[in-house]
């Protein structure tokens, strides 16, 4: 059973804290993605990676960075969390570019 896992389901942080969200996939996929999902706004792409150590900005990269040191792991970093980064964060992976993506269960991050 193929799987994308995320390190936490729920996370509460304070403004200014550094936040790490981790994602692991076991499908040997080249491509990995980070999205945020907000009510009424749908899924918005933050960053994606098409290979180890490679990254590309998505539609809303401001305030975020990413790291991909191993093929199976893709981390999203909030250098200094702010309240407007309170959201649901979803990680996904795919074998071919933007084709069928496999999503993790999401991390609901609350920044106080």
């Amino acid at each position, binding site marked *: 059973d193929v799987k994308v896992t995320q390190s936490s389901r729920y996370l509460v942080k304070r403004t200014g804290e550094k936040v790490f969200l981790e994602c692991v996939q076991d499908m040997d996929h080249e491509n990995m993605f980070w999205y945020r999902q907000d009510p009424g706004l749908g899924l918005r792409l933050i960053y994606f990676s098409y290979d180890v150590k490679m990254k590309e900005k998505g539609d809303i990269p401001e305030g975020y960075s990413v790291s991909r040191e191993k093929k199976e792991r893709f981390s999203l970093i909030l250098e200094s969390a702010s309240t407007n980064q309170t959201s649901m964060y979803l990680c996904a992976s795919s074998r071919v570019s*933007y084709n069928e993506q496999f999503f993790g269960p999401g991390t609901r991050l609350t920044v106080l």
Partner: protein
Amino acid sequence: GESVGLHLPTLSVQEGDNSIINCAYSNSASDYFIWYKQESGKGPQFIIDIRSNMDKRQGQRVTVLLNKTVKHLSLQIAATQPGDSAVYFCAEILYTGANSKLTFGKGITLSVRP
């Protein structure tokens, strides 16, 4: 997630009826389209896809129709079941090499009445 369905249009159908979920996409040059389903508390799950050179594609109990003339995509679910209750997203993909673009629709909530 659990709040995904807030602020979204809702389609309510009777169990056993057919459902039609519609999506208007934005770019007439988009190459590829996908429908995803997101159940409460879970990440989106791939349902079916279609390429721009096709008008129709069928899966198990689902059919996707593509009308490029009016930039319209629809998902038909036959004999809707309670387990079909979820938020449904369409996605359009434009492949242009380094500048490929993926855009998700905002989603529609499907509610199945028993």
